[in-house]
Structures are given as structure tokens and as C-alpha cells.
């Protein structure tokens, strides 16, 4: 593996290998000294052109637990504010001698472009509405830890704004590649215009699906990406598509509730369900560090390009 840009770059065997490695690193992160010397002397830079707290912290923690050095580059207070182009910024960073660049950018495809400019490994940490592959991997690891290695036949509903969601695209592809049956749920205005490249079914009727679901994956309603009003009101959204206490009561007792965060409590998920028995939302965060360790280790530590 040279870069991690899209879930599409990963074969089923690559996915399994990364998730196995993620399990190993999860065991490391639970030790008293949750750190290994595997990537000593490597430098990982995070290059974030968009706000992020958890993804950025998660990558930074992952790199540090592998004993890599980390640098952070944020747009505010940097030369980007003075008009430097992405290409110049990236080449400047590379000239400092880095081994991996973790890129988040509001434009789809930006990490792919970065990968063509530099020799360092590039990890896509979210590009516009396109992909967020490490989120998909952490979701897959979380689900796998509850369901076993194969997700064969697991029935997953991804509810919300799939059209504007890179999380939905990456996670749906990863779940489907591992054998789950994925359905996107939402009003037509929030479902993808075209299902090309989406291995999913769609429906507007959340209530009908409830009793059959193994996983309820709630997307955040993204105020910042909505250029037009795509549904009448938050209250109406919650009424039809929110995971309310009443809806949760119709789920199977072992249905898992997932959310990529940050949550709008009371909108897509009822406040008390986030900490309820089926919720694995905090596990997702912990698993995020472990899969990002796995990704960085595969990119920088194996010495043998696989893809």
C-alpha cells in the first residue's frame, strides 16, 4: 500500500489485513504503556484545510503511539492565509523530510492530487463530499468486533444526509465489501442523485426497516454543507428520520447504534440513546486510533508496497 486515498483502492484481503492489524494495535492501546517503537524516526504531518478535532487528534495519537514524530499544519496562521497554493505548501512540507502526509481538504480529490506531487505516503482524512477511508475502517473494525470477521448478511441502515456525506460513501463501501447489506435511509433530497459506485439500496421509510436491522448508523446533519434547504425543518427531520426513543424500542435488542460524531443530540439521535446499551459510539473513537495506527504502520512500516 503506497497511499490510502479511497476505500476502492483496497481489496477484501487488504481490508482484512488492515482490520487484523487494527486489532493488534487495539491491544497495544489498552496496555499501561500504550506505545510501540515501530515507526521511530518517521515523521507524520497533518495538513488540515478544514476544521476537525477528532480525526486530527486521532491521527496524532496514532502516530505518537507508533513513536513517529508529528507535525501539524493548520490553515489559519499559516502561509496559506498569505495565498500559498496547495502544491507549494505540500512541496515545502516534503522538503522538510516527512514520511506521511495526512490530508483533509474541502475539495474532493485533493489528496489524490497531493499524492501525485510528492513521494511521501498520503492518507485521505476526508476530501469534500467524496471519501473518508479511515472513518470507514474504524466503523468496519467496530462492527467486526461485535459481529465476527465476516459481516456476512449484517443488515445496516445508514440514515441521513448520504448525498453530502463522505462518511456514508466510504463506510457503505467498506461494509458492503465485507459482506454487509447496506441501505441508505432518508428523504429523496438527502439520498445520492445517482447510485453509481454505491453498493447500496435506498428507502425513505425508516420505520419499516427498524425490526430487521443489525446496525443503525446515524449521519450527522451537516449544517455547514447545506447550500439549500433540503428538508423543511430539523423538527420534521427528527420526526421522520431521527432515532428517537420510540424507534429504538422497535429495534432488536442487540442492534448496534453507530455515529461518526460529532452528534447533534436531539436531532439525528435522542440524547439518552447515545449512551444507551446498543451504542458503540465511544468504541468507534477508540477503534479510530487503532485503525489509524494500522494504516500508518502499513504505509510506513512494512517496507513492501502491496498496492
Amino acid at each position, binding site marked *: 500500500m503506497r497511499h490510502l486515498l479511497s476505500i476502492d483502492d483496497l481489496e477484501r484481503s487488504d481490508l482484512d489485513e488492515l482490520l487484523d492489524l487494527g486489532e493488534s494495535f487495539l491491544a497495544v492501546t489498552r*496496555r499501561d504503556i500504550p506505545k510501540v517503537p515501530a515507526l521511530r524516526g518517521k515523521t507524520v504531518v497533518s495538513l488540515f484545510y478544514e476544521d476537525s478535532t477528532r480525526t486530527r487528534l486521532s491521527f496524532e495519537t496514532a502516530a505518537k503511539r507508533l513513536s513517529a514524530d508529528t507535525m501539524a499544519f493548520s490553515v489559519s496562521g499559516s502561509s496559506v492565509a498569505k495565498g500559498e497554493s496547495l502544491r507549494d505548501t505540500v512541496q515545502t512540507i516534503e522538503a522538510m523530510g516527512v514520511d506521511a502526509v495526512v490530508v483533509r481538504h474541502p475539495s474532493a480529490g485533493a489528496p489524490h492530487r497531493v499524492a501525485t506531487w510528492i513521494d511521501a505516503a498520503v492518507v485521505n482524512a476526508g476530501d469534500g463530499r467524496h471519501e473518508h477511508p479511515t472513518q470507514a475502517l474504524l466503523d468496519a473494525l467496530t462492527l467486526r468486533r461485535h459481529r465476527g470477521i465476516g459481516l456476512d448478511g449484517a443488515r445496516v441502515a445508514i440514515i441521513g444526509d448520504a448525498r453530502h456525506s463522505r462518511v456514508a460513501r466510504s463506510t457503505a463501501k467498506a461494509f458492503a465489501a465485507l459482506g454487509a447489506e447496506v441501505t441508505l435511509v432518508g428523504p429523496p433530497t438527502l439520498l445520492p442523485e445517482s447510485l453509481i459506485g454505491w453498493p447500496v439500496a435506498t428507502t425513505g421509510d425508516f420505520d419499516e426497516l427498524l425490526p430487521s436491522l443489525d446496525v443503525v448508523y446515524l449521519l450527522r446533519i451537516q449544517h455547514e454543507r447545506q447550500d439549500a434547504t433540503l428538508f423543511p425543518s430539523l423538527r420534521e427531520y427528527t420526526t421522520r428520520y431521527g432515532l428517537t426513543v420510540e424507534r429504538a424500542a422497535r429495534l432488536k435488542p442487540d442492534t448496534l447504534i453507530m455515529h461518526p460524531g460529532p452528534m447533534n443530540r436531539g436531532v439525528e439521535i435522542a440524547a439518552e440513546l447515545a449512551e444507551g446499551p446498543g451504542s458503540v459510539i465511544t468504541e468507534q473513537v477508540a477503534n479510530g486510533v487503532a485503525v489509524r495506527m494500522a494504516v500508518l504502520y502499513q504505509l510506513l512500516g*512494512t517496507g513492501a508496497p502491496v498496492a
Partner: protein
Amino acid sequence: MSAPDAAQPNPQDPATREGGRFVFRARVFSPEDLRRAHTRIAHEIVERNHGAEQLVLVGLYTRGVAIARRLGEVIAGFEGLEVAVGSLDVAFYRDDIGLRPVQPLGTTEVPVDVGGRTVVLVDDVLFTGRTVRAALDALTELGRPRAVQLAVLVDRGHRELPIRADFVGKNLPTKRAEDVRVRLAEVDGTEDGIELWGPADPAGEEEA
């Protein structure tokens, strides 16, 4: 070997082997030999440490773990007490990360606090010593043992680091290009034994 034990290609892995087939050369241990070696090493460990109360046997993946369990059972049999047995994965501590694909082989699990105890690291074959070096680092992160000792079934020479074993099943002089294969029923699904293999075409084989 618990992990491919060298800074060079692992001869057991055809994908990384440089040219040529490996062929069987000699049987070094029969199942009975292996059993006797286990028994003797188990007694030596207990004798050297004046008992087994403060011992932890820590096997290195893959076969070291199985051997540590066997030694634990033997000791339990004659001392009448349970010996703590753990497993150690050293992948992330190796010094050849980045030179070849290094993947974890199992989960580190040591059931007791190693602090203040005597840890006996257990592996099947001692070769360059690099796996043991990595194991010492990995062990450090679990605590500060009173002492660390090393037990191996075969010492085949060619050390690249100042490491020696405290308990040895057999000293086996080998050529570098040869391969010592330890078979354990619970790992390999075959009869127990130790075999010496070597390149089918010994032309490029350097002398030991």
C-alpha cells in the same frame, strides 16, 4: 522460529526466498527427543531458580508460545504448582521494520505482573538474536522483572548480537543458508520433531 529471525529473507517463506528450493537434510530430533528436551529444560529452569513460585514463562510467537505452555505443564507436573505462562508478540519492536513486511503474529498476554519476578523467555530456535533483542524491549514495557532468562529448543549459532541462551535443548551447528524447522503437533498439525533443511542447490551456500 517465532518470527523470521534475521535481517535477511525468511527462508521458510517462498515469496521472499532468494532462488532455489529447500530440501530436507536431516532429522535432528524425534518426538521422544523433543519430549526429553522439554523435560530436561523444565528441570533446569526450576533448579536454577530454586523453585517455580516466582517464575513466569513467556513464549515468543509462534512456536515459543506452545513450548512455554508445554514447559509450564511439565513443571506443574513435578513441582505441583501452576506456573504463570504468557505470550509475547515482538513484531512492533523489531529492528527490521521497513526492510521487510513485519506483521504481528499474535496478542501479547502475560497473566501476571512481571515486576519483581523472573521471566523465562521461550523460543524454538535461537539464530541471530534479533528476535530476543526485540523481546527484551517488548518485555520492558510490561514491567521490570527481577531477572530475564532465555530458553530455546535449538541454538543454531550465527549470532549478530551479544545474546546467549540460559537453557538449550540442543546446540546445532548450521550453515547460514540452512533452515532449522521445529514442528509441534499443536501448531503444525504434524508429529513433533526438529529437522534441518538446506538449499537444493548448495552452490551459493557460504560456509558457517
